[in-house]
């Protein structure tokens, strides 16, 4: 029996949109999906004409779909963007090496230049080596901190105007929940921004901010996009897992929950008397940091000194630990 069809284009519907519950045919879904991202981009003024945009490509579904959609929209609506792919190789055997193959294929398919930066070459440590030092617990701290900076460095090398990341609506809602659970009000406020501009860094934007993860999978499935879908082999982060399961439960109850949470995040306001960290610059590497010495430098210092646990936890503790070292002369690097 043909399914009643919301957009009335005459075709039989083949899918139900996870976001709105409407039934659509394949073509109309593509249009809806792409138009929504187009409207997110134009309403949020994410790009300017002539911008060079780096797509943070991991080879996963979000970045693959992002690359495909940005390419399509760029041609269709004349954004006049120059798109490049930027990948970070953390050096995780059995995970990143495989996913980078996907990125390489994407590069040929979408005809975009690709730049790969590796942790090994930036920091002298690959994740495989780091895990050998610190063990399976807390290694995500290293990976996350290093990647954020690596992306910035890569973007500077490529001389781009903007980095586009593949964060989707589910990711944002999850982060809102996480930041509440962790009591991190500074990030709670920042995490819903569609575009983050900090002085001294390249702006980052999230064109998929209002796109549901399920729809991204659906889009990739129908378009038969080639993406890599394996969980990282090192420590799936337990705590975020809780928030993720909770969000999925909510979505099942009420699909609009994800948008509701983002809405909550957007309208929340932090009390004036709450002290927020000041944005400064790391005295060692010059990248943006809220501390004198940024997390990446502390972590790296810890690794190089054979104290891998140094940067895990509060920065103040790390500073104390550094001060207690027999050779405090090196404290300020």
């Amino acid at each position, binding site marked *: 029996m043909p399914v009643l069809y919301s*957009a009335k284009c005459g075709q039989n519907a083949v899918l139900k949109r996870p976001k709105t519950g409407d039934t*659509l045919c394949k073509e109309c879904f593509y249009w809806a999906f792409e138009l929504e991202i187009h409207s997110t981009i134009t309403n949020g003024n994410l790009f300017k004409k002539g911008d060079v945009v780096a797509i943070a490509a*991991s080879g996963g579904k979000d970045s693959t779909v992002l690359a495909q959609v940005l390419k399509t929209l760029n041609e269709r609506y004349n954004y006049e963007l120059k798109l490049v792919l930027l990948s970070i190789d953390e050096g995780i055997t059995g995970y990143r090496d495989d996913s980078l193959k996907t990125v390489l294929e994407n590069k040929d398919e979408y005809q975009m230049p690709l730049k790969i930066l590796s942790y090994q070459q930036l920091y002298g440590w690959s994740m495989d080596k780091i895990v050998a030092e610190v063990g399976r617990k807390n290694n995500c701290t290293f990976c996350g901190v290093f990647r954020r900076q690596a992306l910035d460095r890569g973007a500077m090398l490529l001389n781009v105007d903007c980095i586009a990341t593949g964060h989707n609506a589910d990711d944002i809602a999850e982060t809102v929940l996480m930041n509440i659970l962790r009591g991190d009000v500074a990030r709670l406020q920042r*995490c819903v921004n569609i575009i983050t501009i900090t002085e001294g860094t390249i702006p980052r934007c999230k064109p998929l901010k209002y796109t549901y993860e399920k729809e991204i999978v659906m889009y990739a499935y129908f378009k038969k996009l080639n993406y890599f879908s394996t969980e990282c082999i090192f420590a799936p982060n337990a705590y975020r897992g809780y928030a993720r399961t909770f969000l999925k439960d909510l979505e099942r109850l009420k699909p609009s929950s994800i948008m*509701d949470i983002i809405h*909550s995040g957007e309208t929340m306001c932090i*009390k004036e008397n709450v002290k927020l960290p000041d944005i400064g610059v790391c005295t060692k590497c010059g990248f943006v940091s809220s501390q004198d010495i940024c997390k990446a430098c502390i972590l790296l210092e810890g690794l190089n000194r054979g104290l891998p646990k140094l940067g895990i936890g509060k920065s103040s503790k790390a500073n104390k630990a550094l001060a207690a070292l027999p050779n405090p002369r090196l404290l300020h690097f």
Partner: protein
Amino acid sequence: MCSVNEEGAEVFEVLKPIEPLELKCRKCLIEDGNVVLQKKFVYCKTCFVPMVTHKFRATVGKSKLVNRGERVLVCVSGSQSSVSLLHMIWTGLQQSTYKRLTFEPVVLYIDESVLHDYPLDQVKKIKELFEKYGLTYHIVKFSAAVYLDNCLNKDTNVDQYNDKLQNIFNNLSDLTLKEDMLMKLRKRAITKLADLLKCTRIMTAENEHKLSIRLLSNVALGRGSQISLDIGLAVNNKNNNNTSLVTIRPMRNLSAKEISYYALFNKLDDFMHSNFLTATSEDESIQKTTERFVNDLQVDFPSTVSTIFRTGEKISEKTSAIAYCLLCQGIMEVNVSPSSAMEATKYSKYVSLMGVKALKLSLKELKNEETNEKNCNGCKCRNKQDLKEKIIESLCYACTHIIQELESLDDLPEEILNKEKERLQFKKMEEQIKDFLL
């Protein structure tokens, strides 16, 4: 996606292996302990009760919100928390207490038996309890409090209002919305009664645990901007500028466990108090799912509740707000930027209704087309639809979800409808004179 946030994950508290607990109370070091808090602090009965009372007194005192002789409406639902609150206030008022409480409590019980099945003698028992304490008290039927201005008059027949109230909730099939609506109507009722009873402060008995669950479910419902209104210590009620009604939650620094031990040691009985979620499964409503989530997490990470709670304390209302929701008095989202979840949701609905056609038509044209379809030749149903659309304009994001589910607005309290009419009237006036306003 990789699961690490912007600047790297932070490390969470690691549970230390359980050490054998001290047997003696950590305060007096003489008595054997009766209670263990946070898995490590041992208290005896004689030290525990003053400790809890002190937390309550400190919350009331620190806020400096209650003046000497001020009339305070104390809301009692029959829960362990509220019964304990009543007991603490009563104890604080006794002559023998050091630093006696000096406000004048007015105890309130709202009888919700019209919505839930309570034992028949519940009201009688509550009455006995209130009599025992000898404080001024009022027992009011929920429907009377929602619909009537003279709800303190016990002789009024409330049958028709009972029907109206039940109608509203029967119309809402979704448990999440049902519970949300109940909370909002309760709040309205309490605010109204405080006004009628000339109270300028309201005390409710929510504990830390309950408030953090409420915070998280509020976020999930899209009520993020209203968090401080729902969990804060003191909330100015903007509804009434000249009297400035403030809600105080003096139990907010106490955990559910502390309260149950307080009730146990003082032999306080609690009463049946239900809401729509009582005895429903966790997979049926957002509030219950949130509750399970927080409870589960609390087991592994004992600081969960207090962290959520303290995050909530740092969130405030937007000070620049000019409009308040007609139903919940929360902040309204006016002048939303085009790049927001609200607009994105509207746009999604629009594109998936239009498909490829979306390219040609703009959003406005769609609205016109929709209204054309809806017009069934000026019959009554159109008027109703019209009023609903209008009223939605003066509701906040989350309350629109509730009202959209309602079939008819006739069962809503008259004041809401009147206010809306007033607003529309005012808008019309503004429209007429707008060219002459400088």
